[in-house]
């Protein structure tokens, strides 16, 4: 049992690592035995992980990590980009090691009532954040189209993104020019003109976010973005993870990515 006393939606718990394996050149997959936390998690939410390797070494503060796999009857999974001390310590964990996690935290993605089709634009490890949305959408009978952007084909992780959701994937790459903003704009315009989706979602790239924000406004399509930010407490107490978000009245305010986010309205988010 990994859930705390009833009535406390956020749990600090230790979970056993079931699987820890590299994915491609710079990513890593962690699967945890945490059935109750997995069942309580929603796509777009995150956990605050104490990044200590099997010997207990790692940075002092926790690191926020978006949920890659979750749901009733499923193991809890994270797909991380190994780039610093925290993620290196996580990648050093082995099956059987224990990991302290805090969560689930934050506001997840929302699917509108009656939606039939969504479009996802993801780049890099941002696809890990959006992956559970494809499965939630599929479970509700919402069709998913996805544009996945990567440096090169070997970085794509299409399988990690789509799982068995049946998402229709279009891959674009920096290496052959198909991932350049004008090319992706042409691709998206064609989709939006022919048969626009009911909602669009993005994570992982500032330039793709700006493109999607502009086109979604032009075509009147609602959207959501998952933002990243360095965090302290992960709960909303320290105010270190703020980002500028536009309020409905046009004023710009600092909102906490951990508490009011990490998922924000696409038009309310400002570039970073």
């Amino acid at each position, binding site marked *: 049992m990994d859930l*705390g006393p009833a009535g*406390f*939606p*956020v*749990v*600090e718990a230790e979970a056993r690592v079931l699987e820890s394996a590299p994915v491609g050149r710079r990513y890593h997959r962690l699967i945890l035995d945490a059935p109750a936390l997995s069942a309580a998690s929603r796509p777009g939410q995150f956990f605050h992980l*104490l990044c200590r390797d099997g010997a207990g070494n790692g*940075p*002092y*503060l*926790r690191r926020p990590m978006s949920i890659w796999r979750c749901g009733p009857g499923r193991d809890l999974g994270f797909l991380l980009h190994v780039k610093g001390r925290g993620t290196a310590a996580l990648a050093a964990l082995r099956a059987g090691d224990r990991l*302290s996690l*805090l969560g689930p935290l934050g506001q997840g993605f929302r699917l509108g009532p009656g939606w039939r089709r969504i479009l996802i634009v993801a780049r890099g490890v941002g696809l890990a954040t959006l992956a559970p949305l494809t499965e939630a959408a599929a479970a509700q009978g919402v069709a998913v189209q996805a544009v996945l952007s990567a440096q090169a084909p070997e970085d794509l992780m299409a399988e990690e993104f789509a799982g068995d959701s049946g998402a229709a994937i279009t891959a674009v790459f920096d290496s052959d020019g198909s991932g350049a903003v004008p090319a992706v704009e042409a691709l998206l315009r064609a989709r939006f003109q022919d048969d626009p989706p009911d909602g669009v979602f993005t994570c992982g790239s500032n330039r793709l976010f700006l493109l999607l924000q502009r086109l979604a406004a032009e075509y009147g399509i609602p959207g959501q973005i998952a933002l990243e930010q*360095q965090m*302290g*407490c*992960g*709960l*909303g*107490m*320290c*105010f*270190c993870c*703020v980002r500028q978000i536009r309020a409905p009245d046009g004023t710009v305010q*600092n909102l906490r990515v951990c*508490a009011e986010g990490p998922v924000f309205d696409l038009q309310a988010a400002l570039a970073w």
Partner: protein
Amino acid sequence: MVNMAVRIGPMTLANPVMPASGTFGPELAQVFDLNRLGALVTKSVTPQYREGNPLPRLCETEAGVLNSIGIPGKGLDHFCAQAMADWRRFTPPLVVSLSADSVAAFAEAAARLAATPGVAAIEANISCPNLEEDGRAFAMHPESAAAAIAAMRAACALPIWAKLSPNTADIAAVARAVEEAGADAVVVANTILGLAIDIDRMAPKLGAGMGGFSGPAFKPIALRLVWQCAQAVRVPVIGVGGIANAEDAVEFLMAGASAVQVGTASFVSPNAMPAVLEGLEAFCERRGFARVSDLTGLALPGRLRPAAE
């Protein structure tokens, strides 16, 4: 059964464990029952809206954290009208941390808080810059610290806890000055100024430059400050600085503190406060202390040590 109650001036707290200002909020009620705590301490409230400092606002070290958040907040009006509604759903005494940039502003805000139902005490964050003294913190000097506390004392009848700063040459003198000015307790201590530099960007890691250092690496310094203040004043000392577990809390009590605040540790383990509370009670039971308050000052010079091993 250990009696966990402690007296802080005119107040009796159900137990000596409470959060440190700035590291706590009602959000923590998502993790455990905040009514288990001896008191609740808000983030510093300022008279006016404050945007807060540029990012990054936090940077970790090997065993601690530098922060320069800049006290973002919606100001006193919003606090009294809106935020208090959220705080009133909890039962422990609510201690409102107050920060201001002049003696008059401290006094005016204290009067306002005294007129706000549900405020049990004020923690005067006199570590903030004093605009009337070129931005030097009130708590740097006995005179400016005492001036802020005396003005608040004259303006309200609420218990006043003076939160002292380690960034001073003689903290015992500051503690004596605020005691004479009417403080009901001293909170020792705030973060110590520090710096970290990003050698690739060739600039400070924090957006604001310097920051306040807290966490386990700061504990020996905070403990020493508590020990000095406990010998300098008769009002209760509330110990804070690097407390992460019950053993740390016991050290602070033995150094002369009557209660403790847990801050940065809650970022690493949000259940740190209930763990400290349970561990304190277990320590007293194991060592035969009937009251947690019996631990206060045991390690001070000239005091008797506990009777039996």
